[in-house]
C-alpha cells in the first residue's frame, strides 16, 4: 500500500509533466539551440558553405558592428524613457479610476481597450495620426504655427521616435493602471481617515501612505514594462520600419533583419542572444534590488 503523500506526489508529477514537456520543447530547447546556432556561420543563401563552427566569431562581429551598438543603446534608452512615464501615468490613471464612483466601469473599459488592441493596430493608428500633411496631429500644430509647413515626423532620426514612444505609452499605461488599481483597492481606507484626523492633506497622504503601500505593485509593473520595452519590435517594424535609415531600429528588429531578410542565421542568432541576455540581465538585477528592498523592510 502506497502512502497518501507518495500518491499525492506522484499525481502532482503526472499533472505537471505535460505542461513542462511542452515548455521544454517549444522554449527551453529552442533557446539552447539559438546559443548553439550563434556559434556557427550559417547563411541560408549560401547553403553550399554548410554550417561551420566558428566559436564566438559572431559575437565578436556584433561587438564591432556599429549598427548593432547603436541598436543596443537605442533599446536601453527607449526603455529608460518610456517605462518611467508609463508608471507615472499608470498611477495617475489608477487614482482617477479609483476615485470614480459613478462611471467606474466605463473608465475601466476605456482603459482596457488600448491595452487589448493588437500592437500592430496601435502602430498603424499612430502612424496615421502623425502621417504626412493631413495627419490629425499635424494640422492643429501647423495652424498655431508650432510646426513648419512640410515638416515630416518620419524624416527626422529623433522625431520618428515620438510616435513610437507615444504609441507605447498609450498602449501600456492602462496595463500599469489596472495593476495599480488592484493595489489601491487593498489599501485600508482607515489609514487615510487617521491621516486626515492628524491633519495630513491629500498630497501628504499620497506620499506617506499610498505610494509606500503601492511599492510591491510598482516593482512588478516596472519589471513587466521594462522587459517588454527591451524587446520592442512590433511598433518599430510597423511605424517606421526602423527608419529613417536605421535610426529607430531596436535590437529585436535588427536581429529579425539579420535572420529573415539577410538570412544570416548564425549572426542573427548572436544578436537574438544579445536581446535575451539584455532582458535576463535586467531581470537578475531587478530581483537582486528587490531582495534588498524587502530585507530593508524587515
Amino acid at each position, binding site marked *: 500500500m502506497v502512502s497518501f503523500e507518495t500518491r499525492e506526489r506522484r499525481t502532482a508529477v503526472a499533472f505537471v509533466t505535460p505542461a513542462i514537456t511542452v515548455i521544454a520543447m517549444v522554449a527551453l530547447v529552442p533557446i539552447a539551440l539559438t546559443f548553439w546556432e550563434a556559434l556557427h556561420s550559417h547563411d541560408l543563401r549560401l547553403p553550399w558553405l554548410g554550417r561551420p563552427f566558428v566559436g564566438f566569431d559572431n559575437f565578436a562581429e556584433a561587438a564591432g558592428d556599429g549598427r548593432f551598438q547603436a541598436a543596443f543603446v537605442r533599446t536601453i534608452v527607449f526603455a529608460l524613457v518610456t517605462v518611467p512615464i508609463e508608471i507615472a501615468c499608470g498611477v495617475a490613471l489608477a487614482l482617477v479610476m479609483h476615485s470614480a464612483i459613478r462611471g467606474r466601469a466605463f473608465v475601466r473599459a476605456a482603459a482596457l481597450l488600448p491595452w487589448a488592441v*493588437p500592437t500592430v493596430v496601435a502602430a498603424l493608428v499612430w502612424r496615421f495620426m502623425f502621417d504626412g500633411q493631413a495627419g490629425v496631429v499635424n*494640422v492643429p500644430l501647423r495652424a498655431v504655427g508650432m510646426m513648419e509647413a512640410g515638416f515630416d515626423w518620419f524624416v527626422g532620426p529623433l522625431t520618428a521616435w515620438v510616435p513610437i514612444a507615444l504609441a507605447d505609452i498609450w498602449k501600456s499605461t*492602462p496595463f500599469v493602471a489596472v495593476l495599480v488599481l488592484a493595489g489601491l483597492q487593498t489599501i485600508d481606507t482607515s489609514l487615510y481617515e487617521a491621516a486626515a484626523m492628524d491633519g495630513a492633506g491629500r498630497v501628504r497622504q499620497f506620499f506617506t501612505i499610498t505610494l509606500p503601500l503601492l511599492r510591491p505593485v510598482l516593482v512588478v509593473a516596472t519589471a513587466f514594462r521594462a522587459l517588454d520595452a527591451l524587446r520592442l519590435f512590433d511598433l518599430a517594424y510597423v511605424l517606421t520600419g526602423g527608419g529613417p535609415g536605421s535610426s529607430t531600429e531596436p535590437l529585436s528588429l535588427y536581429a529579425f533583419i539579420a535572420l529573415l531578410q539577410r538570412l544570416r542565421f548564425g549572426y542573427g542568432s548572436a544578436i537574438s542572444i544579445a536581446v535575451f541576455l539584455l532582458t535576463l540581465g535586467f531581470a537578475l538585477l531587478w530581483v537582486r534590488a528587490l531582495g534588498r528592498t524587502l530585507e530593508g523592510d524587515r
Partner: protein
Amino acid sequence: MIAVRAVIVGALLFPLYWMLVASFTTEARLFEAPSLVPTAISLEHYRALFDTRDFLVPVRNSLVVAGFTTIFVIPIAALCAYALARMPFRGKRLLLALVLAVSMFPQISIVAPLYLGLRTLGLLNTYPGLVLPYLTFSMPLAIWLLTGFFRHFPRELEEAAMLDGASRFRALREIVLPLAAPGLASTAILTFLYCWNEFLFALSFTLGPERYTVPVAIALFRGRYQVPWGEVLAGAIVATIPVVILVLVFQRHIVAGLTAGATKG
C-alpha cells in the same frame, strides 16, 4: 474631477475613434483637412477589403490559430496550475519561477531555431507551424494565470470529496473544474487575445497571404503608390472588433486574470 476624467477617457479612446472615422471616410477626403465628426459615411474601404483583398482569409487564419492554441493550452495548463497551487512536490518554487521566466522570453531569441525546425518538419506556412510557436508564450501565461486563480479557490470542497475516497483527479474533474469555469474562461480569453494580437512569429513563419494572420496582413498592406490608408484602417477596425467585444463583455474577468497573475506572486 469630471473634467479630468473626460480628458483621460478622451485621450484613451481618441486614436480608436479616429481610426473608426477614417475607415468610413472616402479616400479623397482622407487627405484633406480632417474633420472630427464624420460628414458622410462611405463603405468603400470595407468593400475593397473583402472584395479585392480577400480579407476573410487572414480573419479565418487568425481565428483558427488562436482558437486551436487556446483549446490545446487550457487543459494542460489547468492540470499543471492545479498541482502548483494545491499539491506538495519538490521543485515547485523553481517550476513557478521557470514558468514566469519563460513567459518573459523575448520572442526574437527563439525565432531562428523555430524557423529552422519548422522548415525541417515542412511546417512553415501551415497552421501547426503557428500553433506550436504560440505555445511558447501562451502555455506559461495560462499556467501563471490559473495558478493565481486556483490559489484563491476554497479547499474545503475537494478535501471533503477526497476524504470520501475520491482520487485527486476525480476531485479535480468533478468538484473543482465546474466551479473553476470563470477562471478558466478568463484565462482562455486572455490566451486567445494574446494569440490574436501576436505579430513577430506570424510574420516570421508565414510565407504568403494565404496564411497571413490579421496583424501580418494589415501590416503588409501595400498600395501601388502609397499606403492605402482607408483599407489599412478598415482592416485595423476588423482586427479590433473581436478585441472590443471580448473586453466589453469580459472586462471583470480580464482584470481579475491580469491582477491575479501579477499581484499575488
